[in-house]
């Protein structure tokens, strides 16, 4: 295994990327040298993964400079950037499924040449050496589909090592791993640093990477908000506000004030869900009373979306989900949605080429004409901006407006239970406030029941009557929002 040269260096400045009207990355700057680890942290949608893709050439930057070992590579296709000495470990495992582990690693060792009748005889030995280094020696001849989740992640690391990159980008290395596996992975990443590589480590929280990183940059909605040592960033006022919010004013209603205390509107009992090898939900039990506003707080990969998809009838599960006492199992996803349990997915799923009005009309197409008109009028009151944008194509709205439209379209279905999956994803604070106000009005003026999934604690707590914390597929805390900061706060920095 050759070691990267000492001059490995990544310099980024003025990096900017727009997607339509949304500025995903704005004037970003960072630098990391040989034998150092730079942590890039930020909540979901803050643009950190985009930064990584821009560096790697998977997305083209609109402006700015990316220099690898002093050579300007901004705007190059990714295979050329890879050859300049950059490598990436993707967040999601992407093995070739018909090939063995050994072949997957071999692939990464091949040169980009068309005339290769036979593999270089040394390739096999090198692939085996790399497999040994990451701990895959025992499973060389197995297919990826038969391997546990952590081994799949190891294949990704092995592929990155195989290219012997001097600049290594690692996207959320610990998502979905157990505590023990996380420790082993951290050690591996530190070894790679000790080889003299420059490592950029992207994650959600300072805490998970604090022990490994030399410096940390915190991002929020595309911009850099803080830089320093892990401790400094954790103490930073802006970072604390972004992750935890300011002083909390909650208007939580006590659980005893809901009349259906005995059989809550929705009860999820000991539900477990597996994605192949990975356990996405582990004996999760929650309940929501009619009219209640419940928040599920959890980091990326904790299982929030899985929980919602399970309730919506999209995933097989063990355990029981009851609506007003009657099991939901056996009902199709369409039947569950028609019955009034409506999910607003994280991806927004708008019909981007249709107008705002057409999107809303589709949501309410089952309503009689009069009720339809009445519902639309009420929604335009709730989100005045949508009234002005009626004729505009949904895809041309800003991120915040799209989110309002998504919620409004769900409300057109007159849901009994509205499930909102990370509505704040990638939104600027000012937009957050507008959505926040709309939710507050919803809560005070209607009898609607809301289940909100968020990693943005600032947004999740103020409206909530009750909060659940989901961590590594398990519910680890339940309580009033006022007690959250004191009992759970530090985990969310």
């Amino acid at each position: 295994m050759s070691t990267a040269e000492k001059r490995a260096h990544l310099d980024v400045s003025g990096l900017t990327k727009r997607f339509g009207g949304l500025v995903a990355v704005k004037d970003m700057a960072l630098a990391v040298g040989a034998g150092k680890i730079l942590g890039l942290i930020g909540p979901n949608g803050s643009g950190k993964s985009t930064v990584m893709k821009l560096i790697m050439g998977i997305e083209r930057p609109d402006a700015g400079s990316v220099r690898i070992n002093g050579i300007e590579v901004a705007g190059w296709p990714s295979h050329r950037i890879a050859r300049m000495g950059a490598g990436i470990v993707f967040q999601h495992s992407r093995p070739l499924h018909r090939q063995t582990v050994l072949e997957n690693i071999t692939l990464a060792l091949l040169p980009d040449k068309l005339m290769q009748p036979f593999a270089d005889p040394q390739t096999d030995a090198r692939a085996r050496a790399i497999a040994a280094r990451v701990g895959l020696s025992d499973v060389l001849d197995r297919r990826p589909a038969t391997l546990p989740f952590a081994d799949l992640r190891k294949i990704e690391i092995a592929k990155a090592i195989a290219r012997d990159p001097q600049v290594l980008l690692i996207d959320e290395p610990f998502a979905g791993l157990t505590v023990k596996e996380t420790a082993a992975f951290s050690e591996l990443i530190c070894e790679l640093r000790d080889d003299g590589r420059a490592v950029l480590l992207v994650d959600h929280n300072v805490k998970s990477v604090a022990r490994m990183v030399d410096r940390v940059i915190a991002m929020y909605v595309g911009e850099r908000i803080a830089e320093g040592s892990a401790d400094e960033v954790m103490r930073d006022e802006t970072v604390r506000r972004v992750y935890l919010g300011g002083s909390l004013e909650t208007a939580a209603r006590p659980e005893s004030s809901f009349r259906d205390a005995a059989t809550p509107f929705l009860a999820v009992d000991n539900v477990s869900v597996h994605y192949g090898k990975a356990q996405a939900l582990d004996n999760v039990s929650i309940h929501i009373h009619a009219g209640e506003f419940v928040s599920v707080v959890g980091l990326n990969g904790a299982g929030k979306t899985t929980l919602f998809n399970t309730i919506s009838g999209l995933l097989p599960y063990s355990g029981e989900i009851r609506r007003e006492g009657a099991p939901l199992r056996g009902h199709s996803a369409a039947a569950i949605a028609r019955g009034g349990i409506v999910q607003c997915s994280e991806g927004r799923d708008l019909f981007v080429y249709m107008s705002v009005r057409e999107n809303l009309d589709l949501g309410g197409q089952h309503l009689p004409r009069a009720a339809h008109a009445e519902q639309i009028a009420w929604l335009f009151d709730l989100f005045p901006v949508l009234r002005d944008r009626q004729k505009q194509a949904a895809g041309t709205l800003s991120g915040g407006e799209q989110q309002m439209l998504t919620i409004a379209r769900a409300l057109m279905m007159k849901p009994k239970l509205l499930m909102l999956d990370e509505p704040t994803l990638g939104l600027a604070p000012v937009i957050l406030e507008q959505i926040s106000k709309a939710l507050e009005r919803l809560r005070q003026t209607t009898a609607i029941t809301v289940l909100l999934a968020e990693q943005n604690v600032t947004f999740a707590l103020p409206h909530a009557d009750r909060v659940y914390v989901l961590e590594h597929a398990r519910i680890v805390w339940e309580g009033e929002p006022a007690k959250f900061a004191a009992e759970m706060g530090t985990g969310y920095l």
Partner: protein
Amino acid sequence: MRSFATARILLVGLGVIVLASFLPLWVTGYILGLLTLAYYFGVFAMAWDLLFGFAGEVNFGPTFLIGVGAYTAGILDNLYQPPIALCIAAGALAAVTAGVVLALPALRLHGPYFGLTTLVAVLILQNFVVVDAHLTGGEIGLTVPDVISISDAINYLIALWFMAVSGAILFWLSRSPVGLILQASGQDAVQAGALGFNVTKHKLAAFIISAFFSGLAGALLVFYLGSASVGTLVDITVSVQIIIAAVIGGRRTILGGVLGAVFLIAMSEALRPLGDLSNFVVFAMALVVVLLFPSGFFGLLTRTREQA
């Protein structure tokens, strides 16, 4: 281990080809004729599988490449009567050129749009053939003055060994490092790019190789049949048959295409007494194979052997 399996499959294949070489001693000229046709179709299917199974691009118009090769060779022979070998080489070259002209812009598109482009290419060729009747013979078809041989046995052996050599080259290519890179490019272009592979370059190379074998086989077929027509070489139905042959033979196996082609032609012959119903039955059977055994005949064969 992998190279051992590759060698074994090639050995078994060679054995089958040698055995099949003695078939002219046993069966009638009619059956030889059918098999000759099946072998050329086998090459079409194998060339198609390199694109679909490995590069991950669905070429809905394999007959575009075949047709360009066949008609170029046929028209050249009609106009100037050069040696047949020259006509065939020109056909293969024309198919490669046409393939590059089509693939360069088409590979910039993603997903179904690539497939649509290839589909439209077939329609354009078909219209060209019909409209430019003085050159191409139009809807009646093009008759060439020369054939390679009038002996059923010789035509059969040429087709058999042409298929064997094409199959060996394509199969070995698919198992070589380039085949691995091609699969990676087909399955996850972003990741392949991040690993330093020029995805477009590899896909274009696959398209050129596919075009070469398609055009070569198309040109040979013209000098076997003594004619070229839209109905036998260019029509969309022919494209669909080639695709079905490759898929029921076994995706990503290359050699499966031959099994699929022989199966399709053997079945439509065996079911000829059913009249118009025969095609219906053949396609229904193909559908059943695709639904029940997505890995195709070849996948079925190799799996049983692995279990044994």
